[in-house]
C-alpha cells in the first residue's frame, strides 16, 4: 500500500496535536455571549454566596422576636422592616435563601435521578416496559402537581425534608418524559447501532453513548426545574406545609403575613421579590443554556 491516498504529513505539519474542547468549556463559550444568561448566572452566584455566608450577613437573629418592635416599616434600623412578631425581615430573607436553594437543588436531584432511570429504561427498552412506565407517568401528570405534593405531604407528614421529597416525586414524570424523548431520537443514530455492533452491552450503550449526547437537554430542563421547585416550596410554605416555625422560609413568610397586606405591605413585598428574583435567575440561565446548547445556533 504505497500510494496512501490521504497525505498525513501535510496535515501533521499544518496543525499540531490539539487538546480537545471539553463539553463544559464549549457551553461556557456559547453562554458568554448571552447577556440574559450571564445576569441569571450572576444572580445565582450571589444567592449561593448569601446562602453560604448568610450567618455573617444577618444584622439580627432571624428567629428573635421582639414584640415591642413589630410592624416597623423599612428604615435604617431594619432595612426591610419587621414582621408581626418584630423579627427582622431582611435577616429572615437571608436565612430563607439558604432554605430555598437547598430545597430546590435537592428536590431536583431526586426527580432527576429517578427521571433519568425511568426515562432511560422506557426509551431504550421500548415495548411493554415503555408502555407501563409512561402510562404511570401520565397518570401522575394528570393530577395538578401542587395537589399531588399536598397529597404526598399528607402521607409523609409535615416538615422541610418531607417537602423536598414530595416536590421531588411530583416532578419525576417531566424528567422521565424528556429523557425518554431524547433517548428515542438519539437511539436511532448510526453511532448507537455501531456501538452495539462492536459488542457493547445495553448499560454501557445508554451511559457511554447515549447519555453524553442528551446531557445538554437534561441540564437545561434541570435548571428550569430548580425554579419550579423553589416556587413549589414557597407554595407549600404558604399553605403551612413546609418549614415549621420559627424557621424562616419565603413562602411561609408570605403565608403568615397575608393578613397584613394592607396595613404592612412590606411584610409581603420583600419575600415576594426574593422569590421572583430567584425564579427569574434560574429561568434566565436555563433559557440561555438552551440557546447556547442548541446545535443549530452554534454552527457558525
Amino acid at each position: 500500500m504505497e500510494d496512501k491516498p490521504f497525505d498525513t504529513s501535510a496535515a501533521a505539519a499544518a496543525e499540531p496535536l490539539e487538546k480537545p474542547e471539553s463539553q463544559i468549556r464549549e457551553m461556557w463559550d456559547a453562554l458568554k455571549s448571552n447577556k440574559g444568561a450571564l445576569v441569571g448566572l450572576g444572580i445565582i452566584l450571589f444567592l449561593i454566596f448569601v446562602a453560604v455566608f448568610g450567618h455573617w450577613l444577618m444584622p439580627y437573629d432571624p428567629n428573635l422576636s421582639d414584640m415591642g418592635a413589630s410592624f416597623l416599616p423599612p428604615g435604617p434600623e431594619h432595612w426591610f422592616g419587621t414582621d408581626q412578631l418584630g423579627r427582622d425581615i431582611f435577616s429572615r430573607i437571608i436565612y430563607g435563601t439558604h432554605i430555598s436553594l437547598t430545597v430546590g437543588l435537592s428536590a431536583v436531584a431526586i426527580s432527576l435521578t429517578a427521571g433519568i432511570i425511568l426515562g432511560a429504561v422506557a426509551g431504550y427498552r421500548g415495548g411493554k416496559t415503555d408502555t407501563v412506565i409512561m402510562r404511570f407517568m401520565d397518570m401522575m401528570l394528570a393530577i395538578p402537581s401542587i395537589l399531588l405534593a399536598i397529597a404526598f405531604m399528607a402521607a409523609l407528614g409535615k416538615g422541610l425534608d418531607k417537602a423536598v421529597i414530595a416536590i421531588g416525586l411530583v416532578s419525576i414524570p417531566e424528567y422521565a418524559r424528556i429523557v425518554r424523548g431524547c433517548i428515542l431520537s438519539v437511539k436511532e443514530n448510526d453511532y448507537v447501532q455501531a456501538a452495539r455492533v462492536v459488542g457493547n452491552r445495553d448499560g454501557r450503550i445508554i451511559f457511554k453513548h447515549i447519555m453524553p449526547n442528551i446531557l445538554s437537554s437534561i441540564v437545561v430542563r434541570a435548571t428550569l426545574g430548580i425554579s419550579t421547585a423553589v416556587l413549589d416550596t414557597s407554595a407549600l410554605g404558604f399553605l403551612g406545609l413546609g418549614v415549621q416555625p420559627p424557621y424562616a422560609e419565603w413562602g411561609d413568610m408570605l403565608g403568615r403575613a397575608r393578613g397584613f397586606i394592607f396595613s404592612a405591605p412590606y411584610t409581603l413585598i420583600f419575600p415576594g421579590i426574593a422569590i421572583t428574583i430567584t425564579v427569574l435567575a434560574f429561568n434566565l440561565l436555563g433559557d440561555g443554556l438552551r440557546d447556547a446548547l442548541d446545535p443549530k445556533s452554534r454552527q457558525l
Partner: protein
Amino acid sequence: MLLEVKHLTTEFHLKKGVVNAVDDVSFSVDKGEILAIVGESGSGKSVTSLSIMGLISPPGRIAKGEILFKGNDLTRLPLHELQKIRGDQISMIFQEPMTSLNPVQRIRDQIMESIMTHMKLTKEEALRRTVEMLDLVGIPSPEARANDYPHQMSGGMRQRVMIAMALSCRPELLIADEPTTALDVTIQAQILELLYSLREKLNMAVLLITHDLGVVAEAADRVVVMYCGKILEEADVKTLFTSPMHPYTVGLLESIPRLDDERERLSMIRGMVPNPLHMPPGCAFSDRCDRCMEKCRKHMPALVPVNGSKVRCFLYSEEVEEDRHE
C-alpha cells in the same frame, strides 16, 4: 444571452474568518441551453445557484459582480421586482423533493397558488393549467393525483410535482440543484429523460447543478467545472468528456467507477478539498495535483480560452490571475 453572470463573488462572514464560497465566477446561459455546473461539496456550485435566485442570507452576501438576466442586473433589483422574476421567469427545483413541498397542502393547491400569484388566471383556468402541467411531467391520471398530499406520493413522483410547479409559469430559465441525487437510479433515468424532453418542448434554458459527471454527460450541452469557488474549466460536453484539460477534471473522470473497464483499482485524486479558511496561496488544486509545478503553489492561474474551451491551469497558459484579493 439569457443569463450572464459576471465576476460573481459571494462571501460568508463566519466567526473564524471570511470564506469566498463563490470567487469571481463568470459564465452565461443561452436560450434553450442546458448548462451544467459540476463540482464536489464545497465547490460553490449551490451557492452560485442561490446567488442567482437572490436567496443568499446572512452571514452570506454577494460581495461583487453582476447577474444579468435578459440585461437586468438581479443583484441590484429591489426585492419586489426580484420576486416577480423569481418563480415566473426563473424557477428552481431542489434536491430534496420531500422537504420542498408543504406536507399539509394538496398538490393541486400548491401548484395553483404559484400559478395564481404569477399569472392573472381565474381559479378554473389555474386548475386546468395545473392538471396540464402534471400531465406534461408524466404523472399518470393527473386529475386524480392532483388531489393527493405530498406524503401519498413516492420520491420520483414528488420530484415530478416539483418540476411541474417550477414549470407552471413557463419560466425561461430553470435552475435544477441536484434534481436526481435523492432518487433511485431507475427513477433518475426517468427524471433526466423528462428534463431533456421538456427543454425541447418548451425551449427553456436549464442550469443544472450536480456532483455527478454521469448526469452531466447524459443531459448537458455545456459544462462548467468548479472547485473551491473557482471555475477550473469550461467546455462543451463532448470536448470535456473526450479531451478534458484540467488535471482535476481528468482526475474526476478517471475516478468514476465505470462499467466498461476491467481495472481492479480505481485511479483517484489523492488528498482532500482544502479548508476554505486556509486556502493555499496558489492554485486551490495544487496540493492534490499530480502535475503541480513550482509556480502553481505561488500563483493562481487565470481562466484563459484554449481551443474554444476555457481552462485555469499553467499547463496551458502562463497567464497569472491578477488583482487577487485577500
